[in-house]
């Protein structure tokens, strides 16, 4: 394989990996504040893409994206308020099944609304054939959009959690829910906020990636599994490690085409997930000592 092709694969891997990382961060935000793995996380990405495409029929791309993100955030809030908030001490099993049920419901609703068609937003700049040449290598400008927007999103999240009062409240809830309540912080509102936030970043990811990967009513599921794999790989709850893990998985997948038929691409990710769960459930970057005290 030529170095150029190698680079091409690498870029593709990084692009997908970035998206996986964003989905993983969505998982982490909800997991940190609630201890719930939201099995409907992938559906937020799908909804973002779908709503974005639909709105784009009427308004320019940036407005469509903003609308899609806001609408998906609203869905996130509704989901939390209608299905999670009022449950009293639900068991883990119950929460798992509820979020699975939600993901099916959203998917089927999307099928009803948009049909089985494959959609995409237009390329943010240029077209499908436009490319930037770096030496002999050609990259779609959309790749840069994906990387750029993701970087901005991660920076914004960091700022939010580290510097703002609301972000600190969420972190406080994540470290110790009861203590946060004793400080007067409404844990329930923080949970809603975590759903809103992770719906929002999921939707944004869904919009920026749609020109490359397209979006369909059932494209959330596979993204959710990849995102979860990345979240586990980085250590559940650890968003910075999720980025590294995302890039790792994306690149691995991209190069897996060498050794396996493309149909088995998803199998790679899931095998990694299972392997990590078996040998090191605290994740590649997690602290095994601290993890031993946790309940897997």
């Amino acid at each position, binding site marked *: 394989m030529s170095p150029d092709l190698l680079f091409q694969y690498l870029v593709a891997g990084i692009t997908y990996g970035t998206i996986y990382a964003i989905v993983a961060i969505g998982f982490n935000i909800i997991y940190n504040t609630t201890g*719930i*793995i939201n099995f409907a996380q992938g559906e937020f990405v799908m909804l973002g893409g779908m709503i974005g495409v639909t709105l784009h029929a009427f308004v320019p791309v940036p407005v469509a994206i903003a609308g899609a993100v806001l609408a998906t955030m609203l869905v996130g809030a509704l989901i939390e308020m209608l*299905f999670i908030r009022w*449950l009293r001490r*639900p*068991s*883990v*099993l*119950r929460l*798992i*099944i*509820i979020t*699975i*049920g*939600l*993901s*099916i*419901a959203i*998917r*089927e609703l999307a099928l009803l609304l948009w049909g089985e068609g494959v959609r995409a937003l237009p390329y943010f700049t240029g077209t499908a054939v436009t490319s930037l040449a770096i030496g002999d290598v050609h990259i779609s400008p959309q790749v840069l959009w994906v990387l750029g927007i993701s970087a901005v999103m991660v920076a914004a999240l960091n700022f939010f959690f580290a510097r703002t009062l609301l972000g600190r409240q969420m972190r406080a809830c994540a470290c110790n829910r009861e203590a946060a309540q004793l400080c007067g912080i409404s844990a329930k509102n923080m949970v809603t906020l975590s759903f809103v936030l992770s719906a929002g970043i999921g939707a944004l990811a869904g919009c920026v990636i749609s020109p490359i990967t397209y979006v369909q009513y059932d494209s959330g*599921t596979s993204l959710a*599994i990849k995102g*979860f794999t990345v979240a*586990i790989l980085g250590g559940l709850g650890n968003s910075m490690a999720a980025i590294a893990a995302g890039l790792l998985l994306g690149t691995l997948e991209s190069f897996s085409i060498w050794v396996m*038929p493309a*149909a*088995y691409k*998803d*199998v790679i990710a*899931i*095998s990694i*997930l*299972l392997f990590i*769960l*078996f040998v090191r*459930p605290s994740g590649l970057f997690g602290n095994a000592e601290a993890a031993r005290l946790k*309940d*897997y």
Partner: protein
Amino acid sequence: MARRRNLPIVVLALAVIAVHLASAAAGKPQYLTQLTMAGYYSLVIVGLTLLMGYTGQISLGHAGFFAIGGYTSGLLTTYNLQGGGAFLSLLRATGLLIAGKDLYGGDLLVMRPWAACLIALAVTVGIAYLVGKPVLKLRGHYLAMATLGFGTIVYKVVLGSSLVGAADGISDIPAFPLFAGLAVTGKSALRVQNYYLAWGLVLGAMALLTNLIHSRVGRALRAIHGAEDAANAMGVDTARYKLHMFVLSAALAALGGVFLTHYNGGIGPSEASIMKSVRYVAIVAVGGMANLWGALIMGVLLNFLSLRGSFGSYDDAVFGLILLAIMLFAPDGLLRVEMVRRLPGLGRLRGRAP
């Protein structure tokens, strides 16, 4: 006491006969076909009920085991071994193979269904053992995701492998002759026999599983569900019991898969899909989790309706919504244990005295 426990089995047997007579009287024998299929799905469901409801271990990958059973048996009874080497002649000498003609008159050498069935069960048990051993160390979300991952791998593999027909699946799977002219097949001439065969299997499974629930092993399993550390401290090898239960439920799923595949004469990747696994979980939940009879009743009802096409194109949506509604409003299931207990004859189902 033992007689009391056998009463529901007798009631079920009578119900099976009554349904046959009723369908014959109503002139709707096709109902029996769907009921036969629902019976095979019920094998998956009762096994999963024991794993989830009694032992407390979630599995989102049981459609995978069903498919492994069905696909293995289907593949072995259709894959043409003609022209193989020394090993093959050896195999041939054991009588495991059967020669025939394909559609175009070519020579066909395939495995005998009963051998294929046994191999399918063995393969499933082996895989369940290998997967279960590490997976069952996990709990909660981790266990759910790991089993979901396993199910997805099976689905992607059967979907992506041309050996098993990729998206089309395997078709033209031969009948599975058992004894005295009885064969597992969808031919309408054997419809009634197959109906009784399927439900005979379900009855047998129910008899074995109700015995299990009320035994030392059943108590240990329920103890694991309630307080795993305490069960371990009482001398229960929790890892081993969970694994055995996992393997047992996988074997039941595979059994259902093998028989249904031969009954239908084919199998497709949708049998391995995650939605199928979720559907099984939904039915167990509706039945009341730790309620074998509730799961059986709901399993037959919902699968029957689904197979009759009552849910139209909303099939998946129906099961998703059922799951959601049950977990939100009635996490103990629709058929509550208390309700079942109050029914005459079904009382004391949940393990009072042996």
